[in-house]
């Protein structure tokens, strides 16, 4: 009975259909093209006091590497700094006077690199690129100056796994699936329930003999189905738009998503029970959502975070689900590979839903 009422209510709401179709489409159209953390383009200017063939070759090498767009030669440091101040360039590379001559005289002249470090990530990774270009040169020149035969050397070959095309979208797109499911689960559920609270319809249900868990279940099932539908729409779009296929078992993926949705729905219920109006509910969900996303490692590596943040991640359901999604979709893992994450999520689901029911009960008494 109750479930039927909820179904009708949920699926009659036109906004919901908008969310179901438009939200995944919009996110897929926006995120993969814009949320690109990779540093591909660096603007560079040179100050060449040497004007020798060595410095010219080096400058060409920068452009040839494909990472740098040259703004050409500027005559003075001041001019270069002015360009940097206007954010036109990210790097200044300065070759000293008599650079070539001093190399031949073994005087080890210095190349001065200046990075625009307001964006520390870009400066850090970019400096790596600059040095890589110069090191290449350094090595070649060093061997031509020294005696290379005597020296042992270790070479490296690189092998790339789990994303052979090295496509950034393969990482971000599964991440969007996680965000979609989370938003549907927590956001829509919490807001929907608080709205009923504001309108007073929950009071009406409270006076009927329906038990709390029955009520929650009746609310939960339609939203759960909605979330699963959303996820499948997302999967389909992922294949259609980006050609990403699920490497592992599809059924396992859906099963994991089902459990994660239970956690998020429970969270949504819990929040709806503790908040008094829609504005509050929205802020609580929003607050948690941002913490979850930032800690989940979607945009920045978890390994780079301080230890306390890494421990905090053990409480973050999104981080576990992000793991599962990546493992199944990109690496083709089976149930044994992800059983730990699954157990954690299941425990979280039980705890949060029990808390939600208890909290609702308390509110009534």
């Amino acid at each position, binding site marked *: 009975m109750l479930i039927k009422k909820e179904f009708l209510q949920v699926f009659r709401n036109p*906004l919901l259909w908008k969310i179901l179709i438009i939200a995944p489409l*919009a996110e897929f159209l*926006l995120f993969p*093209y*814009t949320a*690109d*953390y990779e540093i591909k383009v660096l603007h560079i200017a040179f100050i060449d006091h040497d004007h020798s063939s060595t410095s010219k070759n080096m400058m060409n090498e920068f452009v040839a590497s494909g990472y740098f767009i040259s703004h050409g030669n500027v005559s003075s440091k001041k001019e270069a700094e002015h360009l940097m*101040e206007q954010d036109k360039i990210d790097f200044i590379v300065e070759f000293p006077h008599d*650079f070539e001559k001093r190399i031949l005289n*073994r005087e*080890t*002249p210095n*190349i*001065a690199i*200046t*990075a625009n*470090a*307001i*964006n*520390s*990530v870009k400066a*850090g*990774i970019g400096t790596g690129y600059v040095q890589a270009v*110069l090191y290449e040169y350094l090595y070649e*020149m060093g061997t031509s100056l*020294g005696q290379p*035969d005597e*020296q*042992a*050397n*270790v*070479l*490296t070959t*690189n*092998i*790339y*796994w*789990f*994303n052979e095309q*090295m496509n950034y979208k393969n990482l971000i797109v599964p991440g969007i699936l996680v965000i979609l499911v989370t938003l549907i689960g927590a956001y829509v559920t919490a*807001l929907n329930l608080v709205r009923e609270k504001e309108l007073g319809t929950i009071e009406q249900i409270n006076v009927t003999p329906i038990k709390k868990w029955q009520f929650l279940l009746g609310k939960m099932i339609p939203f759960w189905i909605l979330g699963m539908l959303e996820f499948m729409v997302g999967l389909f779009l992922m294949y259609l738009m980006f050609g990403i296929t699920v490497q592992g078992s599809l059924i396992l993926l859906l099963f994991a998503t089902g459990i994660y949705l239970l956690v998020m729905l429970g969270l949504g219920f819990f929040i709806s029970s503790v*908040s008094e*109006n*829609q*504005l509050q509910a*929205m*802020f*609580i969900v929003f*607050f948690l959502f941002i*913490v979850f996303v*930032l*800690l989940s490692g979607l*945009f*920045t*590596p978890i390994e*780079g975070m301080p230890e306390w*943040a890494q421990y905090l991640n053990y409480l973050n359901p999104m981080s576990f689900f992000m793991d599962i999604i990546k493992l199944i979709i*990109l*690496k083709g893992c089976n149930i044994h*590979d992800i059983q730990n994450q699954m157990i954690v999520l299941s425990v979280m689901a039980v705890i949060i839903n029990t808390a939600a029911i208890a909290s609702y009960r308390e509110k009534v008494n």
Partner: protein
Amino acid sequence: MKELMMILRKEFIHILRDRITLLLVLAMPVMLVLLFGFTISTEINNAKIAVLDLSKDSQSKLFLNKITASGYFQIVSYPNSETEIDHDFKNKNIKLAIIIPANFETKLAVDKKATIQIINDVSDLNVASVLNNYMRVVISDFVNEYNGNQSPPIPFGMSTQMAYNPQMESVYMFVPGIIALIMIIVTALMTSITLAREKESGTMRMLLITPVKKVYVVIGKIIPYMVLSLICTLLILVISVLVFQMPIKGSIWFLLFLCFVFMLTSASFGLMISAMVNTQLDAMMVTMMGLFLPTVLLSGFLFPLDNMPYFFQILADFFPAKWFIIAIKDVMIKGTGFLGIWKYLLILFVMAVILISVSLSRIDKRE
């Protein structure tokens, strides 16, 4: 004027009465600055790796010691085959694996050449490239040491200077963006929601038929949230200066003026949205999808605009955050004055004027 004061008082009481929301609104900027400041870094320590050592001789042991001593890596597994490496990637959360060839020691001594294979997990490209660089550094250190530090003469040196941000603090980049986000949440989102709430409960109509001028109603709605977002902005500035030692090179009054103009723009976005929708839920959805998300993605504070397709770069020009972020960065970090950023101020101001006049005329038509 008296009417305006009355509306203002009513609105302030509304805000102060909802303690939880108020607390969350004030906690949000604090949390954002701390999270962004502490969690975002490209430096990786103790990444888990696996080593397939096919030679197990004294040189390969030395090499492994070198890896552990670097602090970048932590060897968590010694697989025996490539299948086992695959298993480790899936189970033990390793980020990279290396294969040391058989007879490593002999190869180094006799052939003067050995090849180490690096297996990168490129499902996360940025992590993979950072770790790959670390591994090469370790390898070249090892080679230098093996050769008795008699490396070939160094033809030239390099010195690197980090302009504007010598400590490489990530907050420098994020603080301007966080201020923009918070102002959008507080001014645009909350303004649009409270106006939508009045509509939902029918009190908007009552307000509009009172003799209070319509402009006063709207101004009275906007000002309290501007005050609130000003408090949030000050909170962000205080934390970034005290915790992360971020400098404020320009004039603080000019900075606040700039924030005020952006507030006006984002409040007028909120006004515009509330004129379009009828319920709080719709107001939230439209603000989130139409303003908040584009601010996160298209303002250039998280993701470089250079990387995006041309279409999105153009689209970014139509959202206020991009201009505000450029301007506030200049004022805070470089100490630019009015002459350097008047263009951006003008853009923000024109946006505000257009939006306010359009939405006021829309409210008119409803009557």
